[in-house]
């Protein structure tokens, strides 16, 4: 229905040139909206990164040198909110917008107008949220988890934060509905679900997670809002409420949320490794089922974020076992990636480097995750820098590295030009060295007893903090190189035009359309051969 509208509005017969405003503000083309999402998330990545630089600068040495503790807390809170809701999630939605229709042979997303709306909500949401930093009462300073009663101590600017998060949630839900509608209804004839490439698979599952949990977050923060402004007592013990209840509701959203940020990353990496191994993805069906199991388990492990709140023994045991269980399907994925490389014919272009970096460092984050699942040990690890190290390994060297890998992988398809391979490799190596300098010592800090979310610390923690800060500044600067590479690629600076199939080993429908991908693709459904699929033989 919506596609009908799209095809009648856009005449597919010829390349037409809408005005700048029409194209970028009112356009419904999935590629343009994908580009908008990606550019927006890059901007947010830089803003969130700038906040991280402030944090690392204050933590460079003991003593308070740069900011006061109130502002420091606003920075840690905003850094997380911006990176999660502004950088990582929209970046994956951007990749989905660009690539899903190309990979499944659809002319556009199923609901193009909804697509425009779900993107354009975001800049306003973040404008509102970031503006609280300049309001009386300041930005949120109670951590991105917004635990009451602390989060309720923010001034009236809290209402803006909650409104902004509601908008982000709306945007995510609409995006998820669009992805499900597209993947379920618009696949090219003959592309059964179990023939579909793995990236659309991971996004399909992620979209269900989004629809499952974003409304839960909306409920939690609405109750915060009424506790703050309308004298309800959902989370106020003095009025008969329960502050721990908030944590349960929040993490019921929050744990699936971490999989929302990593499952599409699995998808990206599962596309890239076979390409540069010149070998089909190992265990395609196992990959799909592992993704689905992880998604299911993600709904029943939330309280592992709350082992120290005083849960009954039975609850702690249940959440420990369930959490440990996630290691099994996650392990299957890692083993499958390594097996894909085994006996392949490997080359190491930048996307492959980032994908390999992803597998290694995401696994390190997985290891610390397994350690955190052990409840008695978590009584020590909880709320220390060990946790900070853990989730940055899975989110930065995990999700963000996968995003970088995906960006380099598909940039030539988007722009028609090869990016500068030398600079791409520099970007990878600088990022990898500095990110480990940044986050690995944080394991030591946590184990030695440094709590997270503190602006100042004892001398004992000074050495590793300094190393970590140096790593942070280096990692931050290395990302400016990425911005330059993207810009110069988009401008065609390399002068190297690429063909349809950019990479020798690339399989899949997206490599059958010209580069740069024309404004409209697959206006008639493509015919394809099973051997065109990245995972090759699909009989098992």
């Amino acid at each position, binding site marked *: 229905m919506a596609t009908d509208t799209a095809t009648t509005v856009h005449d597919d017969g010829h390349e037409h040139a809408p005005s700048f405003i029409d194209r970028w503000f009112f356009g419904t083309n999935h590629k343009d909206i994908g580009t908008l999402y990606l550019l927006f998330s890059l901007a947010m990545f830089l803003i969130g990164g700038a906040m991280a630089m402030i944090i690392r600068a204050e933590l460079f040495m003991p003593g308070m*040198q740069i900011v006061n503790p109130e502002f420091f807390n606003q920075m840690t809170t905003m850094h997380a909110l911006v990176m999660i809701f502004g950088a990582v999630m929209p970046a994956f939605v951007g990749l989905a917008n660009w690539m899903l229709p190309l990979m499944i042979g659809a002319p556009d997303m199923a609901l193009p107008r909804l697509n425009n709306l779900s993107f354009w909500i975001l800049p306003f949401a973040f404008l509102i949220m970031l503006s609280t930093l300049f309001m009386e009462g300041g930005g949120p300073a109670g951590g991105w988890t917004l635990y009451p009663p602390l989060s309720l101590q923010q001034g009236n600017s809290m209402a803006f934060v909650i409104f902004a998060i509601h908008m982000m949630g709306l945007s995510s839900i609409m995006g998820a509905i669009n992805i499900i509608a597209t993947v379920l209804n618009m696949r090219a004839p003959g592309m059964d679900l179990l023939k579909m490439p793995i990236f659309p698979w991971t996004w399909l599952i992620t979209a269900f997670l989004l629809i499952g949990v974003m409304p839960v977050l909306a409920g939690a923060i609405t109750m915060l809002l009424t506790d703050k402004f309308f004298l309800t007592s959902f989370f106020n013990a003095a009025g008969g409420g329960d502050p721990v209840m908030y944590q349960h509701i929040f993490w019921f959203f929050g744990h699936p949320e971490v999989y929302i940020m990593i499952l599409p990353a699995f998808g990206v990496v599962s596309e890239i490794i076979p390409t540069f191994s010149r070998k089909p993805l190992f265990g395609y069906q196992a990959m799909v089922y592992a993704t689905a199991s992880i998604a299911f388990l993600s709904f029943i492990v939330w309280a592992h974020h709350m082992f120290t709140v005083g849960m009954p023994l039975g609850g702690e045991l249940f959440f420990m076992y369930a959490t440990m269980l996630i290691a099994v399907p996650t392990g299957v994925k890692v083993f499958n990636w*390594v097996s894909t490389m085994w006996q392949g014919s490997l080359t190491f272009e930048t996307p492959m480097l980032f994908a390999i970096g992803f597998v290694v460092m995401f696994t390190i984050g997985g*290891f610390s995750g397994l350690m955190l699942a052990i409840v008695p040990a978590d009584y020590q690890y909880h709320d220390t820098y060990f946790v900070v190290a853990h989730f940055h390994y899975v989110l930065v060297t995990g999700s963000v590295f996968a995003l970088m890998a995906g960006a380099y992988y598909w940039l030539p398809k988007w722009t028609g030009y090869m990016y500068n391979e030398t600079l791409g490799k520099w970007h990878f190596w600088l990022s990898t060295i500095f990110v480990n300098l940044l986050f690995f010592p944080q394991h*030591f800090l946590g184990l030695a007893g440094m709590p997270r979310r503190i602006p100042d610390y*004892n*001398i004992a923690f000074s050495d590793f903090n300094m190393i970590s800060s140096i790593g942070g500044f280096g990692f931050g600067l290395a990302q400016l190189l990425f911005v330059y590479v993207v810009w110069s690629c988009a401008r065609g600076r390399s002068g190297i035009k690429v063909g349809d199939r950019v990479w020798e080993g690339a399989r899949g429908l997206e490599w059958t359309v010209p580069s740069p991908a024309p404004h409209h693709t697959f206006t008639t459904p493509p015919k394809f051969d099973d051997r065109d699929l990245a995972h090759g033989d699909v009989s098992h």
Partner: protein
Amino acid sequence: MTPRRILACLAMLVVTTVPALAANPQRWQLNMTPGVTEYSRQVYDLHMLILWICVVIGVIVFGAMGYAIFKFRKSKGAVAAKWSHSTVAEVTWTVIPVLILIGTAWPATKTLIWIDDARESEMTIKVTGYQWLWRYEYIGTDVNFISRMDRESDRTRMLRSGMDPAAVQRDGENVYLLDVDNPLVLPTNTKVRFVITANDVIHSFWVPALGWKQDAIPGFINEAWTEIHTPGTYRGQCAELCGKDHAFMPIVIEAVPREQFDIWLEEQNRLAAGDAGDSNAPLAQLAADDALLANATESL
């Protein structure tokens, strides 16, 4: 000195100073310490067990990957195989991790069941978190006091104070942000139960040497226990973000032998019950502290 005397002295040194020192954070410290309780030692063992399991799995996985990276390069003429499936391999690497997980969950469950049981404790301490200090009450006595960060740390931590954090020392040890006016005094070799709550926002009571942290939640009471074996001074911090001075509400436990503790408690109890006119008496101190807290709460 005979070699034997020297050895004895060294042994003494090891016994008296090393545990206490090692229990508090050290520069360049890489790992958790075994702490000073049976529980913290078990936690340390669990931590090392799971760490080594991860290291072994890591060596295998990254080893295989490294081998593939060097062996199966296109530049070395590697030709890609066609296979993409192996039921045997897939079943193996699903089943073996399950067995490893069961092997880890077993000792973890035992430790957890044991630490969960706070019965048969010999005394109870009530811990209350405030923004940004702690109150300790010795249940069944009149001893009840507030513990807040030492003044020198407090002056030094002010924005651009120009003071050197390294200069905040006690007994030759840097105690910047980790020292308090009134430490929590506890007897060794005694099962001490804690009931933990908070008055304003959520805090978390954490002394790494004891091996656990427990959230302090307004309106709710959490329970925990410890039995310290080694006398010494053990430092910790609030572990749950609790506002602007979250970094500045340390916890110090002074663990002393039981006889010494009993004398201390009796003395404190007498002071608390007795002369309130003395400004140094805990009770007077308490009244002042209460006024301060009331003000603090109002200003919120």
